[in-house]
């Protein structure tokens, strides 16, 4: 009888250890799985708002509220060309010009933007 009790105790101990191991594996699994999901800086494709710090940690004015959350582009950039533009190729690169101002196209934020350049 004593032998049987000892045998039960041993088996329960094994069961207890097994339970602990399963719960540890489950916990680690849950942590790993949760870390897999992507944390985006966008909300449905729209940039989150954030305060942009300028030089000397002052909050930069509207001219540059831009990059980390506003909807404006930095000075010198435009999202659409003014009417009446025409394309020109200079040294194999395409530019657009209107009113004597030249713009080079770039892709930013998934869209085409135009930066003012001097040629």
């Amino acid at each position: 009888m004593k032998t049987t009790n000892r045998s039960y105790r041993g088996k329960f101990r094994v069961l207890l250890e097994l339970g602990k191991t399963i719960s540890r594996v489950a916990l680690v699994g849950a942590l790993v799985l949760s870390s897999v999901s992507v944390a985006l800086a966008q909300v449905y494709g729209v940039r989150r708002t954030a305060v942009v710090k300028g030089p000397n940690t002052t909050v930069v004015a509207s001219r540059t509220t831009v990059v980390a959350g506003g909807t404006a582009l930095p000075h010198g950039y435009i999202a659409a060309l003014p009417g009446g533009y025409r394309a020109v190729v200079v040294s194999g690169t395409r530019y657009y010009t209107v009113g004597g101002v030249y713009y080079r196209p770039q892709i930013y934020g998934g869209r085409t933007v135009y930066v003012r350049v001097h040629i």
Partner: protein
Amino acid sequence: MLKKPRAGQRPVHHCEFRPLFFCFTFILLAFALACSRAAEQPATTTANNDPDQLLRQMSEKLAQAKNLSFKVERKLDAALVEGRNVAENAVIEISVSRPGKFHAKSDSTDNARQIFFDGQSLSIYDQTMKLYATAQVTGTIDEAVAKIDETYGFTPPLAEFILSDPYGALSKQIKTRTYKGKESIAGVECHHLSLSADEADSDLWIGTADLLPRKLVATFKNREGNPQLQAVFSNWNLTSTFDDKMFTFVAANDVEKIEMITEAQMKEAAKESAAPEVPTRKNP
């Protein structure tokens, strides 16, 4: 265990209680029962009025589809369109081949764009201006979206819905969830959920029968005028067949390659443009 009988004694069977074996059998039976019940019940009956559960079910449905396509009619208020002062209405067609390919085609009033990702690179094609840019991004859709978001500061439209775990992506933003009842969207009966978050409060309509997203209205409460994004989902196909070529961009002869500007480069440009102006007159 069978003990050897003594002479004139009937054999006695000792059936030993085996707790370990019993527990395993019980767990296996319970698991099998749970699986069979889950398989038997259609999605509609498992849907309840628990908004979190509905979000999870919608997410699982999307995540399980290996090849899916859908259409979104998206309206962005002017304040949400970067660099512009006009609202944008676009029809976006999205095709996804898990785990590592997607294509999005957007047609708006003044621009047609496409995004290609084939597991090796991501290309943006401005169809209107005949320009394109390519970024070397490899891996799964999740990895590409995260990388593009971090480096280039954008994501494909409504990327949350094409990731491998939409629930994980959405629930990271959401603070509270409320069930608002059943409503009809374009003739489809939907569960209406209200989701609040730090950045935007959203209303999401999920089909009661198919548990697919049908409409999303997000109000960006931190922006002046509380601008909205509205997306109406349709043409869901969770068993699409694609030609793999559609995920790879091949430039035509008249299309020019341009640079894709990183977030860091743009920040630098912003910093330069924000340099303090030199005062023209000194105070006495």
